[in-house]
């Protein structure tokens, strides 16, 4: 998606052999959407940075085991989106658990600067994730189902409900 398949395979092969320039090419091709996808799910730039960074570190650690026949993008996006969902769920829980804790003083989230973003932020993280995978990263519902280990019907229903809620909020 972000890079031609041939380029991508060459970068993975080079990075595995120790080439920093190939790793950098892979990183620069995939970072923007990985970071953006994480941000759209968690709505917190610092957390999105951590999530995207962890995903790339996981990729570096797995370079030797990575199946070169598989495309890199879906593998990376699967990690990013799953971690973003976990983070968003965890934050919702912590927000209740840490009330009154003097050490729990997270910085306020940056204000969302668009109607669509505000509407997206109001959705459950699971619905945000499938909308990001479908409408930012361009995966089909079948591909999303495989990425998230979900039945295709579940993906379709989350997409439908999410889009309906967005349409209602945005008028």
């Amino acid at each position: 998606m972000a890079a031609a398949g041939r380029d991508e395979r060459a970068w993975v092969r080079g990075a595995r052999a120790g080439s920093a320039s190939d790793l950098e090419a892979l990183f620069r091709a995939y970072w923007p959407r990985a970071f953006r996808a994480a941000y759209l799910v968690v709505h917190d730039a610092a957390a999105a940075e951590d999530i995207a960074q962890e995903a790339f570190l996981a990729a570096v650690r797995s370079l030797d085991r990575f199946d070169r026949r598989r495309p890199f993008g879906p593998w990376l996006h699967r990690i990013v989106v799953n971690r973003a969902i976990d983070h968003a769920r965890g934050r919702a829980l912590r927000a209740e658990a840490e009330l009154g804790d003097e050490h729990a003083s997270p910085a306020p989230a940056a204000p969302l600067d668009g109607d669509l973003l505000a509407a997206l932020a109001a959705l459950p993280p699971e619905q945000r994730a499938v909308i990001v995978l479908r409408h930012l990263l361009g995966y089909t519902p079948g591909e999303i189902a495989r990425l998230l280990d979900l039945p295709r019907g579940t993906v379709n229903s989350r997409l439908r409900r999410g889009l309906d809620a967005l349409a209602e909020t945005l008028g």
Partner: protein
Amino acid sequence: MRRELEQLEIPGEHEARERTWAVVAAAHAAREPSRGRRRPWVAAVALALAGAVVTAAVSSPGRALLRSLREQVGVERAAPALFRLPAGGRLLVSSDGGVWVVGRDGGRRRLGAYLSASWSPHGRYVVATRRNSLYALTPAGEERWSLARPGVRFPRWAGSDVDTRIAYLTGSRLHVVAGDGRGDVDAGGLPAAARVPPAWRQSRRFWVAYADTRGRVTVYGPQAGAVLFRTAPLDHPRVLEWSRGDRLLVVTRTALELYGAQGQRVRRIPLRGVTAAAFAPDGRSIAIARGSELLLADVARRRVRRLFAGGSALAGVAWSPDGRWLLTALPAADQWVFVRASGGRIEAVSNVSAQFRSQRFPRVEGWCCAG
């Protein structure tokens, strides 16, 4: 929708990308040790480094070699100086050049020629030592009182706004003195106290844990002169630490032992080679320095995960006051390493010794309190 999602401006995106690239590139460069091919080389570097230290002290080419070797055992992309702390609060640092307070903006204030120090409970004062004296200071370095005692070490200050105590070792005896410098008492029984920093429990009453030379850990109340509990002999206790939730952590040569407030052992985590450990401010996890690894143990879930692996041994670990960052050190690389507790993000600082005018690598005595 796709166009709007793609064109959205995310604050700090460019900086985030470059920070992440630095971390990813460093991880890629350090990838070989995990496959077992670089270990003999790392050992060779360690040997070469020991030899290079002498050379480096006297010659410019030697300094260049030392710099090169430090790069091999440290974090590759490190700031050349401490420009800021990644979280609030202030650091207390001891070095050959004395004791220093470091502000959030990286500014350093030297308090004087002291050997070691620690913060008062709210960071309003510092207790510092010289070989044969104990001092209470303001963070500006103004001396409030002093106490002459032989062989003073490991001062630890605890208490509330209105009543505080300082525990310290003088020779092989545990002493406790009030925060105003009055009422100093010998608080340890027999046998002698081991060379392990004592630790105060964070409670309304004063309870201090200390290790003795038989390997037992005793929790003692200086107000009543009573012993709350004493453990069985342990395998060389080296770190004592209380959580906010009244758990006592004892790091021994072979394990992490957790005790409840009344002395019942509630958990044992077998782990050799731990050199430093600290409870998170919320008491839910323990940061552990073990060899070249920084680990995070989830107390409730009994899980340990690795946050960072350096190219050489780590020294010390301290939590930021908000519990979001950890500070550890790579003395062989002359670096401090700030690690995000949630994982992944790393900020390293080089040339630490020179910044504190020190021949030996400086020691972080505490990271305390906003303001």
